[in-house]
């Protein structure tokens, strides 16, 4: 099928055919991340503490900063990545609500990323001895399973993610491309800070292929300077600015892979020939922006499932319970273990 085809419906059908008990959407986890990360940013901004705050969803990036800029770890958001947050919620709130023994739950994440396999094994990403996520497979591995399962993928009918945990917003969808986390966060942070609805929710300055994107966003009376970098060579440039005290910005998004998750190390491999003639990143990213555009709800804080989750379980973003389940810490690491 052509590069950048949105196959959400067929993918969900295939996963149901493979026999998973429930098929949920990490985009919901992304919405939860925005709630926590947005709140964390507003707190840091009001206290003028540990700024700029840097996103922490990309496990390759997190490992990179832990090995190379140990003195700057305080800049990282303490938020777990979306699939880890979601795993933690599935094994607590969801298990309790549906009367399922959390020890019998096996959370499988399908990711565009091979660093997520490493991330899922991090000891910090567990709760009461249970890993938040048990197994991570890549897009390529899922394709193999679908073929093994004798499923004619292109012929499948569409189906929807399972309720009630499958609801997600357009903001969650754009997490998969460079600039997406920043845009999703700005939508929520803007409305939380001003109390008003945004007239225009697209933040085009943080979109596109430029390796480092800088934007100044006016929120109420505040001016927030944001930076988006993707690919670790670009991340390094930003870290050097922060290290030397030259950084005059408050919010930074960094993704380890050039282009963000759509070009992750677990995505379908494109030949040299294809890469010469097709802008793979743009086609996949455009598909995500189309999903966002067509979504009924496009701001994480308007997600009904997330609202209910806070009402019934987490209380509010940054609560004690939220910290226990959804936040983590970072550890300085040696580059070589020889």
């Amino acid at each position: 099928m052509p590069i950048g085809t949105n196959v959400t419906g067929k993918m969900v059908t295939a996963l149901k055919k493979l026999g998973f008990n429930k098929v949920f959407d990490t985009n919901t986890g992304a919405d939860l991340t925005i709630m926590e990360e947005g709140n964390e940013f507003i707190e840091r901004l009001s206290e003028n503490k540990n700024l700029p705050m840097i996103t922490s969803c990309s496990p390759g990036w997190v490992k990179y900063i832990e090995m190379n800029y140990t003195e700057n770890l305080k800049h990282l958001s303490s938020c777990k990545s979306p699939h880890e947050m979601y795993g933690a919620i599935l094994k607590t709130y969801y298990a309790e609500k549906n009367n399922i023994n959390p020890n019998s739950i096996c959370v499988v994440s399908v990711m565009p990323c091979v660093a997520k396999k490493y991330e899922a094994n991090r000891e910090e990403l567990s709760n009461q001895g249970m890993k938040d996520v048990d197994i991570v497979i890549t897009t390529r591995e899922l394709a193999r399973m679908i073929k093994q399962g004798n499923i004619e993928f292109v012929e499948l009918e569409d189906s929807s993610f399972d309720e009630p945990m499958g609801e997600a917003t357009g903001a969650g969808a754009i997490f998969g491309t460079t600039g997406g986390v920043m845009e999703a966060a700005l939508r929520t942070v803007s409305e939380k800070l001003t109390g008003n609805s945004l007239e225009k929710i697209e933040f085009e300055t943080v979109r596109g292929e430029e390796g480092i994107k800088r934007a100044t966003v006016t929120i109420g009376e505040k001016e927030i300077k944001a930076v988006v970098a993707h690919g670790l060579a670009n991340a390094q440039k930003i870290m050097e600015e922060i290290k030397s005290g030259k950084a005059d910005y408050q919010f930074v998004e960094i993704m380890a892979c050039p282009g963000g998750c759509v070009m992750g190390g677990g995505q379908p491999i494109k030949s040299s020939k294809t890469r010469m003639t097709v802008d793979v990143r743009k086609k996949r990213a455009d598909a995500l922006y189309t999903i966002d555009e067509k979504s009924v709800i496009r701001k994480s804080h308007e997600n009904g499932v997330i609202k209910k989750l806070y009402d019934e379980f987490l209380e509010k973003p940054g609560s004690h319970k939220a910290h226990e389940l959804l936040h983590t810490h970072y550890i300085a690491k040696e580059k070589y273990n020889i």
Partner: protein
Amino acid sequence: MAEENYINLTIDGTQVKTKEGMTILEAAKSVGIDIPTLCFLKDINEVGDCRMCIVEVEGRKGFATSCIQKVEEGMIIHTHSPAVLEARRVILDLILSNHHKDCLTCSRSGNCELQNLAIKFNVQNIEYTGKQSEHTIDDLSPSIVRDFNKCILCRRCIATCKNVQKIGAIDCMNRGFDSCISTVNNQSLRDVNCTNCGQCIEACPTGALREKDNTDEVWKALKDEKKYVIVQTAPAVRVALGEEFRYANRYKCNRKNGNGS
């Protein structure tokens, strides 16, 4: 900006007008002529190492490496002359002679640039036999498996790790037949400065770099009746998964140009 300079040349009998500074490979591509490559990866690895992309330029001795050779006024180029084909075949044979050809069990079978060339060149036997290098597979990293026995030394992974990511976890060690891509002190990727990003896998033309496959564990969990298996999918998966599947022949597929794997 000054007016761009154009160059006139002939490729396989076709008159081509192209921008100055283009490579022969790009100029050929612009008129739909496909020159095979192996080590070439646009903007990342343009070094002319493997010589698969060689072409004949009339009036010149030897072959020109089209991925790095720039076009010049009046060039007459043959991309698929008998001499070029024979030379490419020798190059391919030499690469294959030191490659573990266990395609049946290789994760890249069907999507391997080397295998595709072997099919294209109708390789039915490999002329050169001789010493085969033997390397241990490094599968200690939770993310990336390195099987150097399938490596063709194209250096696409090195360029990606060193230049795109500025990490440099892998590089070329030794010389001649002993050349290999390795890490500091030949340690596992687990124990060096690798960030597990996997961009090297995306760059690899063969199965020398691949993800650690965890599908067996998923099948096992699905089979276990005591387990409640919940799957979640990341946003980027849904806009790429379809690329792994082809329409069956009976479908009228409306595939746009250049959308193959």
